[in-house]
């Protein structure tokens, strides 16, 4: 730890590049982190932050350029090598063993031994308490990880790095799973570690926290470093613009002034829990009218998943009512939601939107295989299915070889089109669209946006949930902000801007 004190660059990169096939994930990046600082790396999805961190951590290797450690270029041979040099990362998915206690997880694989080769619990406990004191947190070492709340688990992950002598800590979206009070504690922890001489690198797209915590900020976009600055020299609006970029905004769809009078979809007092039983959403009221696109802006983890699951009928809600087209459908089955006319574009194309190993044809007809015209008296009618599938694929210009090919043989963009083709073919009244253009290239994005707009012009209703501010701004007639599970504001397209939407996403009033 002390040998790093005198260097200029504790960790960094020089002209670092990494390609995955035709995609350039990291593009000639120069990156400098001074020792004993808190350095934030911000950027949207696909900006290259994760890839860069993986390279710094030794999990991946650069194609060109080099990693810098203590002012010198190095070639890391793997994560163990990076670890030995003092670099460690806390991932978004914690690497812990749930039935074991916090202390046991802390010392796993590096247990202090005492007499007779047995674990020296006293020494372990002493060291654990010492680390907890450095971090300024109180930990019940004897409780189980499975009983520990998420923020405690996160602190444990950090302490585990300290236990192993790591002095460059990389935190990946650390505040994604935290409540505001816990975020303050985390920032305090980071400052205490910094005071100890450690270096913190954290990835985030929560600009509020970045401005509060960081000493230095690097902004990445499309694999490049587009800005290096400090909180004193910038503000959230400028950061947001740098993240999103002025040049490549998707073309805005014309907004509609008219929409149907009565709401098509009306949720009142909606409260929803995540699969673990924790309440994440609500109570909220939400209305979507025919002929309008309602965009939900918000950083993931603020209740979007639960909103999607409730609106698409994937999971029952905890309380409240949902009325669709005049009929209450609260807690009806998914099949009922769909037959009532609610379509769903999943954010998880690979696991939920499609069955990758199944054929395109099966992916298309799934869910309706028992209905006419696809089957008669229980027997499938292959010719009818093929005809319909072909025409649906044509409408979305899906590029495929044969309907019997597996869905996974298609490119990401084409896979997305298959999902959209299926949903549109059902002629839904409401489309719940989640990250509809994730992993799709620019022209594909424009194409999909056009189709969604046409759907709205045909009196369809769209509930759009997206992490991309530009997508929300490009499509929505009305934008609502979701923060901490509550609706914090509503804007018409005419009055919306990146800054206003960004503020809503951070929980502040729009105006």
């Amino acid at each position, binding site marked *: 730890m002390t040998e790093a004190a005198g260097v200029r660059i504790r960790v960094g990169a020089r002209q670092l590049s990494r390609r995955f096939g035709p995609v350039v994930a990291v593009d000639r990046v120069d990156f400098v982190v001074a020792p004993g600082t808190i350095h934030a790396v911000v950027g949207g999805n696909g900006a290259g932050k994760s890839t860069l961190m993986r390279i710094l951590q030794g999990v991946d290797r650069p194609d060109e350029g080099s990693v810098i450690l203590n002012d010198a270029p190095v070639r890391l041979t793997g994560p*163990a090598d990076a670890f030995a040099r003092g670099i460690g990362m806390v991932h978004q998915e914690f*690497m*812990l*063993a*749930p*039935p*074991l206690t916090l202390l*046991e*997880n802390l*010392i*796993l*694989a*590096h*247990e202090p*031994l005492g007499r007779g*080769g*047995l*674990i020296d*619990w006293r020494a372990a406990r002493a060291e654990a308490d010492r680390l907890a004191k450095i971090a300024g947190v109180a930990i019940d070492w004897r409780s189980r990880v499975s009983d520990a*709340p998420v923020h405690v688990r996160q602190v444990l992950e950090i302490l585990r790095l300290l236990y192993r002598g790591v002095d460059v800590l990389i935190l990946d979206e650390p505040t994604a799973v935290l409540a505001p009070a816990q975020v303050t504690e985390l920032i305090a922890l980071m400052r205490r570690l910094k005071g100890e001489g450690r270096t913190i690198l954290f990835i985030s797209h929560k600009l509020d926290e970045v401005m509060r915590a960081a000493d230095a900020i690097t902004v990445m976009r499309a694999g490049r470093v587009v800005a290096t600055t400090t909180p004193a020299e910038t503000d959230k609006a400028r950061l947001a613009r740098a993240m999103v970029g002025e040049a490549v905004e998707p073309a805005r769809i014309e907004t509609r002034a008219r929409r149907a009078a009565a709401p098509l979809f009306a949720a009142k007092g909606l409260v929803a*829990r995540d*699969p*673990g*039983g*924790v*309440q994440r959403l609500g109570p909220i009221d939400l209305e979507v009218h025919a002929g309008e696109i309602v965009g939900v802006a918000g950083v993931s983890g603020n209740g979007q998943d639960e909103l999607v699951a409730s609106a698409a009928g994937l999971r029952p809600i905890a309380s409240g009512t949902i009325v669709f087209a005049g009929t209450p459908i609260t807690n009806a089955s998914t099949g009922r939601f769909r037959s009532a006319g609610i379509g769903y574009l999943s954010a998880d194309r690979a696991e939920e939107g499609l069955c990758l190993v199944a054929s395109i044809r099966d992916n298309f007809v799934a869910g309706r295989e028992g209905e006419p015209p696809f089957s008669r008296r229980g027997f499938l009618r292959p010719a009818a299915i093929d005809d319909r599938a072909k025409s649906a694929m044509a409408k979305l210009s899906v590029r495929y070889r044969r309907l019997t090919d597996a869905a996974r043989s298609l490119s990401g963009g084409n896979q997305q089109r298959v999902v959209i083709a299926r949903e549109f073919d059902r002629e839904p009244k409401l489309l719940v669209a989640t990250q509809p253009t994730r992993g799709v290239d620019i022209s594909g994005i424009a194409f999909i946006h056009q189709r969604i707009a046409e759907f709205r012009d045909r009196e369809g209703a769209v509930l759009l949930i997206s992490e991309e501010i530009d997508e929300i701004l490009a499509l929505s007639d009305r934008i609502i902000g979701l923060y901490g599970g509550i609706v914090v504001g509503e804007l018409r397209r005419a009055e919306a801007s990146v800054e206003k939407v960004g503020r809503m996403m951070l929980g502040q009033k729009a105006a």
Partner: protein
Amino acid sequence: MIDLFLHAAMLMTTPILLTAIGGMVNRIGGLVNIGLESMMLAGALAAVEVSAATGSVGAALAAALAAGAILGLAMSLVVTRLCANEIIVGLGFNVAVAGLVRFLLKSAYGVSGTFNPPGVVMLARYDLPVVKEIPVFGAVVSGQDCLTWFAWFMVPITAFVLHRTRIGLRLRATGSAEATVRAVGLKPLNIRDASSVFAGAMAGLAGAHLSIGVVGLFNEGITGGRGFIALAAFYFGRGSPARTALGAALFGFFDAAQIRLQGRGIPAELVQTLPYIIVIVVLVGLGFADVGRSREGVV
């Protein structure tokens, strides 16, 4: 009267307890060993053969342990390195080993079903001088063989190893979070295989108890489904040596009781279903608890 009964119950518990502890350790390490029956069988045969051939109980026990351990390792490797489904592999081992044992008896000794060589030396039973006078407790503890004491001794030992040693900690981590274990630089598959070797060895000793501890010969049906009763015991015990031992003792008790109650109106076969019913009840109970927890919402 009750003394004799308790003594018999202890005796019948031993093989179940040995196997259950092995199976529990194996499950903690991440492998549900359905093939314990085959390891018990192999151990039983090895013990009889070696005991008759060498006249040494020690050698017989060593052979039984080795036979079980080898089968345990073989089964584990197929599951961990060839990514095979542990349930089917376990069932397959049971079928194959049962067939192999009968095959060998016919081929090598020309006997069918029962193998009773001359000169089998049995496990000795020891009376403890002062203890045996104590009512009830004396009958339970004194007059048993070394494997019985060993089995009960293993209960606190296992608990100790699991919670106070390195290997115990790593084993518990391997079964619940394989990716984590790999991430911290350990080799989870090796750890899992080691737990299988232990399970096989314990099952082998259990088989030895059945043959040279009780009946003095080998019979193809000697294990009588005890491998699965042990499975029921360690499912009941859910990772706690004490609870597992309680389950094993309970089933041993039922086993002894059922013999005594035969002809008194309670059908033996229905008593035999109890371990399996208990497993189902435990699993369903846990299921209800899980559902309740997620409905109420835990922070």
